[in-house]
């Protein structure tokens, strides 16, 4: 049986580093579930267990995983599984740790998912920067073939499965699932119009399940130990644990796997060691650069991080990449950074996003260089508001979140003094 200490379901390698080797993973009971499932369980039973666990997608949107699997079109074949390992949201570095340090559990999760939705091929789409990681995964996949855990006629049944890695080449938009599929098909990584959604029209026009790395890494333990066991972690509506990537102005940045429903205060102040040098916390970004800025008051710090509670703060749980902002950070500078990112990453397919991010960046640069007047702040907000609801994919919406929320919730930062250049707080390097 797989050993679980505390709330480490995914980061189990931190308690048992041997899990990163094939032998160590096998010794801990790894791939027993895989054999059990292929020889004794129906695909429907696997889907039902994941459905009952209440697992929700960890890539950002939080869609119930079992429900997505049920949507796969059973009248159109073949089926594919595509793993979203594009991990490019600023502030997010959890999928990388899973794949680097607990790869076999991740791969077993991918395999179980493929079986559950009757797919014989699964692609792992990694951002191009994960080059070394992909090379390791290729070796691990080859090992699984050698051990006859992948390939034809698995365990004497008629089921066969192949896994392949596919490297992207530096484009944030390829994390959006339909852009990812286009990219995997060898086309420009630009989003498709939806519907149809991937479970009916996905890779090569075939029914496809796209899931995030962290989502799938949960699956082996859910199947082995059951939905009821899984629901012991987290809250009623947000079961399980979540890896919180903690970054920014905090003493101990890093990944923390904690039950959903842990408070912001607990993560930042207790686990993260608080803000260095006795400075005060000012704002929290809850889901990387795509999120609004939350005013970090007592109420926010007491808020549980789960799918239901975070929206009450005017934010989203999303990928749960928490960026901590202290009192020395000027939000004019911060907004210029996020806008620059989205302007760089806009795929250019639709006008409101392409033009909007360009103009926003133009204005934030002027503000930063002390060439702006107060009315330019209004203009910046106007441009952002005009993008809302008009873009083809969520990137356009993401680009407006930090802008609008900073201006509305931190008006002091946006009082323009003529000719005053913005300074990025201190730029001292901080190490633990």
């Amino acid at each position: 049986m797989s050993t679980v200490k505390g709330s480490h379901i995914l980061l189990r390698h931190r308690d048992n580093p041997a899990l990163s080797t094939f032998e160590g993973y096998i010794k801990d009971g790894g791939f027993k579930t895989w054999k059990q499932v292929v020889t004794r369980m129906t695909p429907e039973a696997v889907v039902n267990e994941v459905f009952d666990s209440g697992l929700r997608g960890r890539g950002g949107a939080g869609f119930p995983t079992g429900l997505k699997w049920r949507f796969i079109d059973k009248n159109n074949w073949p089926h594919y599984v595509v793993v979203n390992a594009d991990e490019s949201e600023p502030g997010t570095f959890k999928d990388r740790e899973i794949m680097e340090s607990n790869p076999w559990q991740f791969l077993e999760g991918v395999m179980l998912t493929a079986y559950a939705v009757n797919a014989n091929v699964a692609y792992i789409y990694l951002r191009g920067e994960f080059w070394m990681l992909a090379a390791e995964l290729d070796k691990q996949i080859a090992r699984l073939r050698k051990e006859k855990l992948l390939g034809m006629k698995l365990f004497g049944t008629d089921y066969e499965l192949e896994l392949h890695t596919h490297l992207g080449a530096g484009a944030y938009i390829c994390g959006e699932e339909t852009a990812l599929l286009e990219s995997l098909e060898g086309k420009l990584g630009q989003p498709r119009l939806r519907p149809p959604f991937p479970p009916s029209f996905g890779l090569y026009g075939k029914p496809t399940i796209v899931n995030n790395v962290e989502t799938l890494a949960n699956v082996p333990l859910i199947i082995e130990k059951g939905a009821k066991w899984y629901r012991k972690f987290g809250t009623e509506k947000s079961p399980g644990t979540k890896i919180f990537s903690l970054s920014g102005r905090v003493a101990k940045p890093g990944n923390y796997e904690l039950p959903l429903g842990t408070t912001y205060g607990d993560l930042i102040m207790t686990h993260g060691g608080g803000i260095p040098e006795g400075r005060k916390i000012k704002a929290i970004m809850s889901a990387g650069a795509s999120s609004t800025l939350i005013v970090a008051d007592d109420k926010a710090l007491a808020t549980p991080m789960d799918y239901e509670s975070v929206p009450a703060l005017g934010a989203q749980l999303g990928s749960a990449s928490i960026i901590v902002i202290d009192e020395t950070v000027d939000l004019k500078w911060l907004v210029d950074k996020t806008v620059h990112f989205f302007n760089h990453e806009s795929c250019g397919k639709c006008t409101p996003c392409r033009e909007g991010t360009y103009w926003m960046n133009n204005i934030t640069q002027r503000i930063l260089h002390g060439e702006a007047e107060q009315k330019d702040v209004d203009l910046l907000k106007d441009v952002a508001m005009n993008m809302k609801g008009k873009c083809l994919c969520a990137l356009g919406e993401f680009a407006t979140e930090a802008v609008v929320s900073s201006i509305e919730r931190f008006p002091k930062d946006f009082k323009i003094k003529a000719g005053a250049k913005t300074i990025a707080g201190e730029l001292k390097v901080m190490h633990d």
Partner: protein
Amino acid sequence: MNALQTKYAKEVKAILAKYPDDQKRSAVMPLLYVAQREAGYVSRQHLADIAEIIEVTPTEVASIVGFYTLYHDQPEGKYRIQVCNDLPCAMRGADAFLQGVCENLGIEVGGTTDDGLVTVEAVMCLAACDKAPMFQVQDYENITYYEEQTVDSTLKLVDKWRKAGAKKK
């Protein structure tokens, strides 16, 4: 069989085998990485070769090169130091680090050293935000991460490359 296909026969075959027979186009990204191994960029000849292998036009392959940041259509420094100065890293000193590296190498961000060895670029988040300042190095063969760096450790790395290069000559 064109030049690329002949030189990397086994690899090209393995790449094509990953995708359905009627979906050769999916091989474009891995094939571009193979091409870039020669001199760190995709030449016109490579475009034509890849186009022939996957049965599309060279213009279509060129559009893919243009879309993604890790493909290059121009030769630059043998080592591309790609420093992340996105928001989380910038809050941990990445901008100052980037400036420091560039000043010491006597180049601007985006520039290449006189000996053609090193190009320094600013890039977006690399999923290592807790280990800033950090960068990746893209050379002809690989992409390697360097985390928790200082200007000094970076200059030492450049020195090591310079010495290795001098030995080869």
